[in-house]
């Protein structure tokens, strides 16, 4: 992103905030991956390695009463919404202190109080749900916005198209992100769609779209802020495609040998943390010593969270039977 644009649009405080969350997300997911490799985390392990900028960029401009309907590579957004690293690790470890109390795992984190709609594995299912949350805001005339995200793969599902169309028709206050990381599990883009850009799909719904450098956290932040405020003002939905690269497998069990090494090498040097550091230095916002401080702070926070999560209790077997139905007092007027 052009440094002159950053100077006018992103304050030093905001940029350092973005950088801190890049570091926190990277440190947390690196730690979770290590726990997975040690066999202490079972099941799936989905990270945003190399793509952290996307959800950090979209979540930071949101206000506290806004809502996100994320997908499985949005760890940074969880952290910004106030889900703690400890809660994330507790969720991965199946602990009772995790946001789903062991009922669900890994990145299937939801908490209405913090404006996070839980993700389900069926990709793009959260997009119609996001339109419904936005519809509620529109019906009540509330100046609130929903941001939702999906991968390139999810944009092939009908729910993506149904949600995009409905949002555009009703001019709903929702912003659609697409983390285009070039692979849907093992299937490359050219086997997923015949269009050049995912953003081309938005045209079919009469929805404005932008293509962003998915590794430039400041660029995403600025575009997200613009789209969010437009939606808040009644200007309707926007589609933002973030082009990036999935640097790990689909899940950590997957060595992703189907991805050419040259492609990974090409994207390794475009890492969002390196990119942010170069820009922060160029702008005179921070130097190496600041980066090291922030990284150390992030790691310390993660370790405290891991310790808390590990000490947390597991649920008891019979808790399986709890919570199938909601009770009246949970939905009081």
């Amino acid at each position, binding site marked *: 992103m052009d440094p002159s644009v950053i100077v006018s649009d992103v304050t030093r405080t905001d940029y350092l905030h973005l950088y801190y969350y890049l570091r926190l997300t990277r440190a947390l997911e690196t730690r979770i991956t290590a726990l997975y490799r040690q066999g202490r985390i079972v099941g799936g392990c989905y990270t945003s390695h190399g793509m952290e900028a996307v959800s950090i960029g979209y979540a930071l401009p949101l206000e506290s009463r806004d809502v996100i309907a994320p997908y499985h590579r949005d760890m940074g957004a969880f952290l910004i919404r106030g889900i703690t690293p400890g809660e994330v690790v507790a969720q991965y470890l199946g602990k009772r202190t995790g946001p789903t109390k062991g009922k669900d795992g890994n990145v299937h984190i939801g908490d209405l109080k913090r404006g996070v709609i839980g993700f389900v594995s*069926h990709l793009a*299912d959260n997009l*119609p749900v996001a339109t419904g949350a936005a519809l*509620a805001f529109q*019906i009540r005339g509330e100046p609130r916005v929903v941001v939702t995200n999906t991968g390139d793969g999810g944009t092939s599902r009908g729910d993506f198209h149904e949600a995009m169309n*409905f949002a555009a028709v009703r001019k709903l206050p929702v912003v659609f992100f697409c983390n285009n990381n070039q692979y849907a599990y093992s299937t490359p883009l050219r086997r997923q769609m015949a269009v050049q850009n995912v953003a081309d799909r938005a045209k079919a719904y009469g929805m404005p779209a932008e293509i962003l450098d998915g590794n430039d956290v400041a660029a995403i932040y600025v575009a997200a802020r613009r789209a969010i405020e437009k939606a808040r003002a009644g200007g309707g939905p926007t589609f933002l495609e973030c082009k990036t690269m999935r640097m790990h497998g689909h899940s950590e069990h997957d060595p992703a040998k189907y991805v050419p090494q040259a492609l990974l090498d090409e994207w390794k040097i475009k890492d969002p943390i390196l990119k942010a550091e170069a820009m922060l230095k160029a702008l005179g916002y921070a130097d190496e010593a600041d980066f090291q401080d922030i990284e150390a702070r992030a790691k310390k926070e993660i370790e405290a969270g891991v310790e808390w999560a590990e000490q947390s209790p597991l649920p008891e077997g019979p808790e399986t039977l709890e919570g199938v*139905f*909601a009770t009246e007092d949970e939905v009081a007027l």
Partner: protein
Amino acid sequence: MTTAVHPTTSQEVTYLEAISQALDEEMTRDERVFLIGEDIGAYGGAFKITEGFLDKYGDHRVIDTPLAESGIVGAAIGAAMMGLRPVVEMQFADFISCAFDQITEVAAKNHYRWNAPVPMVIRAPFGGGIHGGPFHSECPEGWFFHSPGLKLVAPSTPYDAKGLLKAAIRDPNPVIYFEHKFLYRRIKAALPAKDYIVPIGKAEVKRAGSTISVVTYGAMVHIALDAAARLAQDDIDLEVIDLRTLIPLDTETIYESIRKTSKAIILHEDTKTGGIGAEIAALLAEECFDCLDGPVLRVAAPDTPVPFSTPLEEFFLPKIGDVEEAARKLAAY
């Protein structure tokens, strides 16, 4: 609450009008309630249940959508999570298959997974006898009977149609409301002038009898009652239980009846294999084995799609004669 203790309106209303009244009264009573579906606004719905609602409540509470059942249900889920009370109209219950994923994966599991209630109603006009053919006659309740987290109701009278719909709208969980198209304009009743509900989870003994219990719901309740009238001449005294709610099943009322009659027929319009009748038969084998004096019989549609041509559809649908035949067979034990 029963009809008798309340003054009734002077005019009798059809089953269809009872549904309309419930929607109208709940929308007036609770501004969180809104309607969403295909052609429900200006057109008033395929069956005219919401005729006049658009003028009365406006297009923020009577929302015509694009033709996209999954998107509609997803949107209702999102709005419900934000505190509204959506009532979805499936134009025909058959089309609910397009929304199966949102219903079973998102709505049904939401509270269990992360404690977020989904107070939503899906009205599903179901059933045959209207020359609808394979795509406008289905009884899809069996699919959802097997999805923990949903409540299912299926009224057979105008009184229950109104009272169960009000209860469904006030319930904090996703409820699928199966309204039988054959009954829409064929049955009438005077309803209480005052607000009432029919509680979810309560079956009703529609006809007390001593020889055989017929457990049924929906339009088949009327078939069972007609069969009972015929069999009474031959001293076969059927007890007819209208389940009214399929989930949560009122097992106590069923067991109590079987303990009295010792014989059971389960009657449903849905196809036979793997249906609700199979589950009830299994429950009776588990819980009432000692008091059974004969095999538990099922009278249900054959395992075919619902055929179109009149003689085929007549053959397909369970008839009074089928219940009579099963009852005579069982009476011989």
